[in-house]
């Protein structure tokens, strides 16, 4: 536990329930994010990620429970104050196509009671400095996405809510996007990312919250989730010519998934993997390569998607 965890959380949902015309879209969600934390919210389409974002923005009210952002009720009378410290990137971002990027930034800066000065830096940061005076009509999807990101960063918000922020970004831009997020995190900004891009998230976020059908299925660091999921590690051996079958035979206790001429793929409990590696070297067959794949977010995610829903 860091010191920050004991601070007042920037984002908090307490037993939040949301129903639309009798259809329950969120079930008893309790969840909080402290300053300087980056949390990923993952889940299938319709799992409730965007609903949580809307609750945090005060665009909808919880049917039951409490929502607090920067110490305020985001749908209450001090909502504007809370929103002054927030930045939001919606899932589908669109702008008036006949405005230039700079005009759009000026407009949003004015709404956030900020000067125009910082806009150039923000446009530069997302790589739109050269396109700032062009109309949005001429922008590619990725450029619009980056403009969306730039507007979310206006006024150095203390809380960032980003819904699918990396869609339409190429790998270089993705990396620079995460670099930006990391430097914001170091400044104590709270970041909540809703995303499907699981593989790029797991090394970059402090915590992952997995949603399914309106339930919060799991919430913890990658290490905690791995442990709780107790998924096996997956090990792939590349043997000398033709001895894969022999190796598989001698590997007692391991669950063999696949044997193919030179390679054997098998699962073993994560905590036993060192023991197994030791045994592999004693198998008496030539081992040319060994790959150990720890359970990644994709597999953990799959597990929770298939899990029984709490009734």
């Amino acid at each position, binding site marked *: 536990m860091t010191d920050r965890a004991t601070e007042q959380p920037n984002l908090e949902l307490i037993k939040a329930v949301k129903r*639309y015309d009798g259809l329950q879209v969120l079930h008893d969600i309790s969840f909080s994010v402290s300053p300087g934390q980056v949390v990923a919210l993952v889940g299938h389409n319709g799992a409730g990620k965007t609903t949580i974002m*809307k609750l945090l*923005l005060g665009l*909808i009210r919880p049917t039951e429970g409490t929502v607090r952002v920067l110490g305020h009720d985001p749908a209450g009378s001090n909502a*504007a104050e809370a929103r002054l410290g927030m930045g939001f990137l919606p899932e*589908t971002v*669109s702008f*008036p196509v006949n405005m230039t990027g700079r005009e759009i930034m000026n407009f949003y800066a004015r709404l956030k009671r900020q000067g125009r000065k910082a806009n150039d830096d923000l446009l530069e940061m997302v790589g739109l400095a050269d396109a700032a005076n062009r109309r949005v009509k001429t922008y590619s999807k990725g450029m619009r996405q980056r403009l969306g990101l730039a507007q979310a960063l206006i006024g150095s918000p203390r809380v960032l809510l980003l819904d699918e922020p990396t869609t339409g970004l190429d790998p270089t831009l993705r990396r620079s996007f995460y670099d930006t997020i990391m430097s914001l995190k170091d400044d104590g900004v709270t970041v909540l990312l809703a995303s499907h891009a699981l593989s790029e998230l797991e090394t970059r976020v402090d915590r992952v919250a997995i949603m399914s059908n309106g339930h919060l299925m799991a919430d913890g660091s990658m290490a905690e989730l791995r442990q709780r999921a107790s998924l096996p590690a997956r090990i792939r051996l590349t043997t000398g010519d033709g001895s894969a079958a022999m190796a598989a035979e001698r590997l007692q206790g391991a669950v063999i998934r696949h044997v193919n001429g030179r390679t054997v793929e098998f699962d073993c409990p994560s905590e036993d993997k060192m023991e197994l590696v030791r045994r592999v070297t004693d198998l008496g067959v030539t081992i040319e390569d060994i790959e150990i794949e720890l359970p990644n977010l994709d597999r953990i995610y799959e597990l929770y998607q298939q899990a029984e829903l709490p009734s």
Partner: protein
Amino acid sequence: MNALLAIAGQEIRDGFRNKWIVAMTLLMAGFALTLTLLGSAPTGTVGANSLLVTVVSLSSLTIFLVPLIALMLSYDAVIGEVERGTLLLLLSYPLARWHAIGGKFLGHLSVLTFATVVGYGSAGAVLLIQGTETETGNWFAFGAVIGSSVLLGAAFLAIGYLISTVVKERATAAGIAVSVWLLFVLIYDMALLGLLVADGGNGIGPTLFNALLLANPTDAYRLFNLAGFEGVATFTGTIGLTANAEFSPLVLLGVQFGWIVVPLGLATWLFQRKEI
């Protein structure tokens, strides 16, 4: 307040950029000039005052054109932004919801006012250049047509905002807007006339009839312009007969304001409660 003006400014700027304003102004100027120039042909130069003829023509034109333009501008205002996802982003900013709807209304009203003043004003300018001699009172009537046309536009903008706030889909809003236009501009008077004929003058007294006239913003507009000014009334023929003495221009203006404030107020109230 700043947010309100920022949103209004954005709307006006967008109106200029996407050529909406230019198209509407040209359309209105085109119609107004045609009516002015052709309208003076039948009256010739003898007796009839070409400015007053223009006033009558322009008010007839307004009844068809202005509500249509206003509804086209406004039916999309809320639901369109909901569907494009721009409203979600806008409302995530530190502003009150009435800022958003009020700012957009203010922007749209400015666009409409610009088109009306410049479009109709061009007709007045042509008459001035032609050296039309007329009393000052007639220019007052001309100004009143422009002003009340803006009010009529505002009323239909407000109705359009209400439609746009209530519906769940953009296509529905478009359908309702067209129906509203047909109802108020074309069907209402005919239905009223039919009702009078069928009734044979038994049930519907003058009081009810007058109330029914005020229940339609275009009729209030018509009464204000065609019967409100003495000089104008002589040119309007039978239209001017109705309820001439019943309503003072002030009452008619009040009704027009009511047609702006009530739908817009209702739209704002519903918008505050809308879950985006």
